[in-house]
């Protein structure tokens, strides 16, 4: 089903490395929100 779904999507190249800073932002944001009691 996933394969069919991916085939139905008009996929295009994404600048993958551009996503990498999210790996730093995610734990930082989670830590900050946890520290202030937001999550």
């Amino acid at each position, binding site marked *: 089903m996933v394969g069919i779904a*991916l085939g139905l999507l008009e996929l295009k190249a994404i600048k993958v490395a551009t*996503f990498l*800073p*999210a*790996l730093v*932002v*995610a*734990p930082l944001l*989670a830590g900050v929100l946890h520290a202030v009691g937001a999550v």
Partner: protein
Amino acid sequence: MIPGLGTALNIGSVLPGAAIGLSLGRVIPDGLQQTIRAGLGLFVAVYGIQMTLRTKNPLILLISVLVGVVIGELLHLDDGMQAIGRWAERRTRRNGEPGRVSLAFVTTSLLFCVGPLTILGSFLDGTRGDVTVLAIKSVLDGFSAIVFAATLGWGVVLSAVSVLLVQGSLTLIAFLANAGLSELETAELTAAGGSSWLASRWVCSS
């Protein structure tokens, strides 16, 4: 245990895996190689979705990806990685298809360096000297290197440098700071990594 042993194990699995894959690539028919690539792409997509769904707060994931992408664009990270691959290709140009080295390098570098096993494994290695997670990852990466090298070529070998730099740095940081991530931080990190995995699937398909 020696901190960094897990990274050494990982490199020790990627390089022989790539060598085996390059040898097998000559005997595997093109049609089968394309099918294997499609299967790997499908696995990456499914695993990426699974990782992304581990988020405990989708809003954190959304904000992290948006802020991360803006930072990545401002720093021209993708252009930099592509440039490294093109530079390596120019230095060792062969009669193969153009662009395959950078594609192999970027794809396998992300595959081997972005994910919960990389982050958790490096921190466990650095803080406790426990290489179990990285040993499991080494086996997975070794087999992945065989298939990717057979289908994408020798650019997979370059990803061993990425593994050394990324995992080695994370392990060193963890060793020096003796730090770890909380469950929430690990979950959000994993989810953000899943998004990158999915993005790498789009690159494979293009």
